[in-house]
């Protein structure tokens, strides 16, 4: 079975080579004469006045965690879809219950307005 993954390994290696190769060539071949002015951060001509580490609004976190929950739900659906023919009606109703529990959460977040961005 692992033989099937040999093309993927070669693909990863080629991908790394394509990504790292130009950077390494530029690093090795290009002229580099850094000075203090070149190394300083540049912000449209004026002095950089604060760090780039801003505080994010917490609502980004909410969107991300809701995405993770439904992402996991989809991950449970893949093996179910493959074995549905073999396991029959029991697996079907099991997934209906599974999805039903999550739909409760979906309705909750919809009614709470967590899906609206304003």
């Amino acid at each position, binding site marked *: *079975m*692992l*033989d*099937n*993954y040999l093309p993927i*390994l070669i693909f990863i290696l080629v991908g790394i080579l394509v990504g790292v190769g130009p950077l390494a060539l530029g690093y090795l071949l290009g002229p580099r004469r850094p000075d203090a002015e070149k190394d300083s951060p540049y912000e449209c001509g004026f002095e950089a006045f604060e760090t780039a*580490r*801003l*505080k*994010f609004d*917490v*609502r*980004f*976190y*909410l969107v*991300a*965690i*809701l*995405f*993770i*929950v439904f*992402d*996991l*739900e989809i*991950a*449970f659906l*893949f*093996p*179910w879809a*493959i*074995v549905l023919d*073999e*396991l029959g009606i*029991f*697996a079907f109703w*099991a*997934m209906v*219950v*599974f*999805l039903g*529990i*999550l739909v*409760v*959460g*979906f309705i*909750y*977040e919809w009614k*709470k*307005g*967590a899906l609206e961005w*304003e």
Partner: protein
Amino acid sequence: MGFEKFLFYVFALITLWAAGMVITRRNPVHAVLFLVLAFVSSAALWVLIEAEFLGIVLVLVYVGAVMVLFLFVVMMLDVDLAALRAGFIRALPLGLLVAGVMAVEIFLIVGPANFGLEAFPPPDAAPADATNTRDLGILLYSIYIYPVEIAAVILLVAIVAAIRLTLRRRPDNKSVDPARQVRVKKGPDRIRLVKMAPEVEEPFGASPTTESGETS
């Protein structure tokens, strides 16, 4: 077998190196990116033990979603590095104690005595058309159906907890609901234009004749 073993050592080394960089980098964003590398190489390790579905799910869920969440958290926390490092020496003995206890526990459970090749001989290599996803599905949706439903309940708890903890209304928001905009009727809701006679204001200043010519 030789090439697989070589790949295992390569990916295991990458995982260990990335995990070491996670806890030694000073920039937390770099640490998160090294954690992504550790997850990706762990996924490669899982594929090497023929758990292909789990490997792909690891990339999909952890690299794709959880690490984005970690990046948000790292950026939201507004980490003060100097304050973080200030208590390092004071917390070091406790950290070493916890790490030592964990290492001993891990060794007791997955040590060579009861987790080696002698206790569990390696299974035969799966044929080329074996689908790991199907085997997993048959087990999940027949024997382990109860834990699957519990997983759904845990996800539901995660949804409710995230919404209760982080959902905030912003009182200073001036955005307009498009649905209400569409429902505006022609009569009372819109601006009404009124015709009226023009009003002429008196020019400012008492004597316009002396100063008006000098403004060019």
